């Protein structure tokens, strides 16, 4: 029997993960050679290029949202995982406490300091700064810090009475000087060539200057110095360049039979705002036999406006009146990413870096495999 090539509708249908009221169907991708007899699904860069597209929804430094369309979940997930765990950032790694008479314990204070996200000149952060590696010989540790692998910071703060405070003042921030220690009180101490890369607007500074680190009372003091190193999220999440990097699949809502009048309004309310809109049934539609619109001219009908905003709550499947009229699903190859940067990288740059990182990993391993065979 000669093989019939799949129709366009069939190809679209294959990409849909079905969502029923209690179950899901067609979860795994089937675009592998040998899956459909007579069809060629082998890897071809040109057909991938043709089928692949990117769509931006938002591009701010702290939040970017975009869609990758026509890519497999395994690749999309690799990008997501790399963004979270493998893109290096600079964070406080060691805290040397000279004096800490505040009520917050040394180790808790150190932990809080470590989690503060910092920003600085991109050239310096990404190219000039290299990895710091702990020497195998502990006694050599003081010879391992260089201007291109360690950034020094200092935090020196004392709390005192404020003589100018009004009598009867109860607000500690007015009653005392430095009652609150904020991230902006951290001072960057450039050494060597760091002046060149991290000065002016490019200086190393907390992304959010208003992060509260500790609270003090008169007579209490915090005096410490810190070392920052480059690290990756797989070692400690403080090194992760993203607050979150996630994706979801594009929702698909298919209204198979007309939903009209008050049902349409109820249907609209089953979804988040903006997903479904109401339109009037036109004369032309009402005249068409078998469309389900006959005799309903001028009535409201439910129309899918923006499926991307749907949360796929399946609420519409719980109601008897919509049974058989609507089909829910998700597009298996349409990934809507949301990348929220912590501030050291631009959100879109984090994604590009993750792609470059995956390429580099594959490149390195290709060499390794050739090496292994040799």
């Amino acid at each position, binding site marked *: 029997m000669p093989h019939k090539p799949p129709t366009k509708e069939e190809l679209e249908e294959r990409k849909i993960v079905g969502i029923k009221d209690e179950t899901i169907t067609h979860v795994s991708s089937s675009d592998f050679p040998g899956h459909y007899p007579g069809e060629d699904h082998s*890897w071809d860069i040109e057909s991938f290029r043709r089928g692949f597209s990117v769509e931006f929804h938002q591009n701010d430094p702290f939040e970017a949202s975009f869609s990758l369309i026509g890519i497999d979940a395994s690749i999309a997930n690799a990008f997501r995982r790399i963004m979270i765990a493998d893109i290096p950032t600079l964070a406080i790694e060691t805290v040397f406490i000279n004096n800490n008479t505040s009520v917050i314990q040394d180790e808790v204070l150190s932990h809080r300091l470590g989690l503060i996200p910092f920003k600085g000149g991109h050239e310096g952060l990404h190219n000039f700064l290299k990895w710091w590696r702990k020497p195998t010989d502990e006694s050599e540790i003081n010879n391992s810090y260089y201007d291109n692998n360690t950034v020094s910071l200092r935090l020196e703060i004392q709390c005192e009475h404020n003589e100018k405070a009004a009598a009867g003042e109860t607000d500690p921030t007015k009653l005392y000087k430095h009652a609150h220690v904020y991230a902006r009180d951290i001072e960057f101490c450039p050494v060597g060539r760091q002046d060149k890369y991290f000065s002016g607007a490019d200086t190393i500074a907390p992304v959010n200057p208003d992060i509260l680190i500790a609270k003090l009372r008169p007579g209490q003091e915090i005096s410490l110095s810190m070392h920052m190193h480059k690290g990756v999220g797989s070692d400690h999440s403080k090194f992760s360049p993203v607050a979150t990097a996630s994706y979801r699949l594009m929702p698909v809502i298919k209204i198979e039979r007309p939903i009209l009048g008050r049902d349409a309004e109820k249907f609209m309310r089953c979804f988040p705002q903006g997903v479904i809109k109401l339109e009037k049934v036109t004369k032309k539609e009402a005249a068409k036999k078998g469309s389900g619109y006959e005799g309903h001219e001028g009535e409201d009908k439910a129309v899918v406006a923006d499926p991307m905003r749907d949360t796929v709550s399946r609420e519409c499947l719980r109601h008897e009146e919509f049974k058989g009229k609507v089909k829910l699903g998700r597009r298996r190859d349409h990934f809507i990413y949301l990348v929220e940067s912590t501030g050291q990288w631009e959100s879109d740059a984090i994604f*590009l870096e993750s792609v470059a990182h*995956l390429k580099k990993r594959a490149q390195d*391993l290709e060499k*390794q495999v050739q090496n292994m065979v040799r």
Partner: protein
Amino acid sequence: MARTKTKKEESVEPGSDVVMDEVPTSHQPESRDDMSVDEDENDEVEVEDNDAEVEDDVQRVRLLPGSTPTAASFEFLNEGHTLGNALRYIIMKNPDVEFCAYAIPHPSEPKMNVRIQTFDSTTAVEALEKGLRDLQELCDVVTDQFVVAREKFMAK
């Protein structure tokens, strides 16, 4: 590199079927046995550094014993689901590959195994190399299209 099952590996004739029981899921190097726990931990910290830095001198991929030219298992050090699943997908897209799967034999060992069985038209090593090459090509396309889409969006 230490291989504990060298004997069995030799007994496998090329092209013959492999008895699955004889293929170990993972191999600890023998030299590890006489290491203390502390040293082991240190080792891991360093290995993570290696992962991120350019360090080509450490061999991270090896062929597991019991492999034949068309049916082989590879052990990757310091790789996980990130590369494992992506690589599995791209190798499965190769029409000359009969079977491909990856596994992480134990969550606290930084190892990832890839099993590749091919038809006679290619070998497992070739399929692996092609997979890694295809993955690089894919990354280039994604970068290109992403940059174009971003420019278009920012121009708006």
